[in-house]
């Protein structure tokens, strides 16, 4: 006879059952994978050093105080997926879902196949894979948790022209790696395991320069050709920690994410000459240096801009309506950490390009940090002539977890 009620034989997987992927981590794991490659290819042991230099062997630790994929030096590729919870998914189901997804992420990020992985051969190249989870307002509500005040849709900005196809979501999965096959496999595995709990709301794919094309740490360029992200706080500094990590409640060690899809009108941008392009931001295209510094040499990128400097005709060298001038606040706490990606998708109609920026920012408090900044840019920013926000979503990013825990356990247990 069918039985009713919860039964002890279907016990809660509270321990390492689901969470056994992280026994190796960091440099040791990278070396181990490199050796594994050498053995699998049948190469003699003397070839091991060459195998160890493969960028696909790179491993980012999964477990820790914070989730990976935030302070992690940005990988070449990212796929962001927003999922909507099915109607019957309650707090208990959320817990089960996050157990499964955490186990997948932990294993795959270390170059191990997931449980029930039907393409295990695709799992052996971690390529610095990180999987970062974020919770939307409805997720926290279903979890019967206390939502931070900033966990809500952003205010409507005048420049926005939002497409509902790229707005909102209950669960964010940011999958990033230096290899696109690795990203695709991780996405497939995670989506298969999320399917009985969620439906896909939107998927956005982004890219930067390939791993190895430019020196690690090089500030990215967007598809306008601009150096993009020079003023970012630096991971590992107290400045970064203060700006990014939440301190209170279930979000302690977590943060918030703002995901904005910014359409960049390359056809209109083409009409602008180089000087106009540089003035729109206030930086040189050559090296990203402020227009009050030097267009030559890589170091000038990080020079402090001089907003007082004027031209011979008496105009500010860095225009007041430039993006850099408008983005800057006299309040040093009104800053965010940007971790953006480019996108270049299929155009529709007569357009030949559908390109833009997958803007991703992390900050401890959206209302205190992102909203004031974006409000200034909304009021005035020359770049608005060529850019249009078409997607927008906000997520609470829970902290990382221990090996005997799971992502979201501070909210769900």
């Amino acid at each position, binding site marked *: 006879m069918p039985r009713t009620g919860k039964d002890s034989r279907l016990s809660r*997987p509270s321990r390492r059952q689901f969470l056994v992927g992280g026994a190796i981590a960091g440099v040791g794991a990278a070396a181990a994978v490199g050796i594994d490659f050498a053995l699998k290819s049948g190469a003699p042991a003397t070839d091991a050093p060459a195998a160890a230099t493969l960028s696909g062997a790179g491993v980012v630790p999964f477990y820790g105080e914070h989730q990976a994929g935030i302070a992690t030096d940005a990988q070449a590729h990212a796929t962001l997926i927003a999922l909507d919870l099915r109607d019957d998914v309650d707090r208990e189901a959320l817990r089960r879902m996050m157990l499964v997804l955490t186990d997948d992420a932990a294993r795959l990020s270390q170059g191990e196949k997931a449980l029930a992985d039907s393409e295990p051969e695709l799992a052996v190249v971690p390529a610095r894979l990180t999987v970062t989870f974020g919770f939307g307002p409805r997720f926290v509500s279903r979890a019967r948790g206390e939502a931070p005040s900033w966990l809500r849709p952003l205010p409507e900005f005048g420049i926005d022209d939002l497409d509902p196809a790229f707005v909102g979501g209950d669960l964010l999965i940011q999958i990033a790696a230096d290899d696109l096959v690795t990203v695709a496999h991780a996405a497939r595995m995670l989506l298969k*395991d999320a399917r009985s709990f969620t439906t896909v709301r939107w998927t956005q794919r982004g890219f930067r320069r390939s791993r190895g094309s430019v020196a690690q740490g090089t500030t990215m360029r967007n598809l306008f050709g601009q150096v993009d992200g020079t003023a970012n706080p630096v991971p590992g500094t107290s400045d970064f920690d203060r700006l990014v990590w939440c301190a209170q409640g279930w979000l302690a060690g977590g943060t918030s994410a703002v995901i904005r899809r910014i359409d960049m009108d390359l056809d209109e941008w083409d009409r602008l000459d180089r000087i106009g392009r540089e003035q729109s931001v206030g930086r040189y295209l050559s090296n990203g240096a402020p227009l009050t510094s030097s267009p030559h040499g890589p170091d000038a990128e990080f020079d402090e801009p001089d907003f007082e400097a004027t031209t011979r005709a008496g105009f500010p060298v860095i225009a007041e309506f430039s993006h850099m001038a408008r983005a800057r606040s006299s309040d040093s706490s009104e800053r965010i950490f940007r971790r953006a990606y480019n996108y270049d998708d299929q155009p529709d109609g007569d357009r030949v390009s559908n390109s833009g920026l997958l803007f991703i920012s992390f900050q401890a408090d959206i209302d205190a940090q992102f909203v004031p900044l974006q409000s200034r840019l909304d009021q005035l920013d020359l770049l608005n002539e060529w850019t249009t926000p078409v997607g927008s979503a906000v997520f609470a990013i829970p902290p990382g977890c221990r090996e005997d825990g799971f992502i979201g356990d501070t909210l769900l247990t």
Partner: protein
Amino acid sequence: MTTTTRNVVSLGALIALATMFTAACSTDGPAPTENAGPAAGSVTITNGWAKAAEDGMSAVFGELTNSTSSDVIISSATTDAADMIELHETVENESGDMVMREIEGGFVIPASDTLALEPGADHIMLMGLTQPITAGEEVSITLTFSDDSTLEFSAPVKDYAGANESYADIDHDMDHSDHEDTDSGEK
């Protein structure tokens, strides 16, 4: 790096000597040892998982590693999650189709080797689920070895679209083609 397991010598005469110990935890596998103790103590299971199912049938998979220099035989299994449990192999029938059936003599884990239980190959078959098994839960399985020692482990449940093999020697009231959504009639 391993599924949590429990090894119990269950022969009545040996109850006084019953030992509980956690299975060894190593990616490389322990070095072969003399097969002095019960068979259950020399086997570890890693990457165990069970297929989610509403009712009817399911299966459990994983990798069973024998750390000793002698073959070890799993002769049966038990679970509270289903009315019936069998050790299955997958073989080719007369018409060339791959079908699964109960294996004669149990699973043999060769000395210093690993037996992979996986979809389309050897697996532990559950029939007549006593209640739905849902992704994120765990199913508890106890393996009994040929020396009557036992190994208990918990397999986390995952959604899985495969593992839909057809059956040979059907002696239960089962649907041949699509058992995933079929009531086995065992309830």
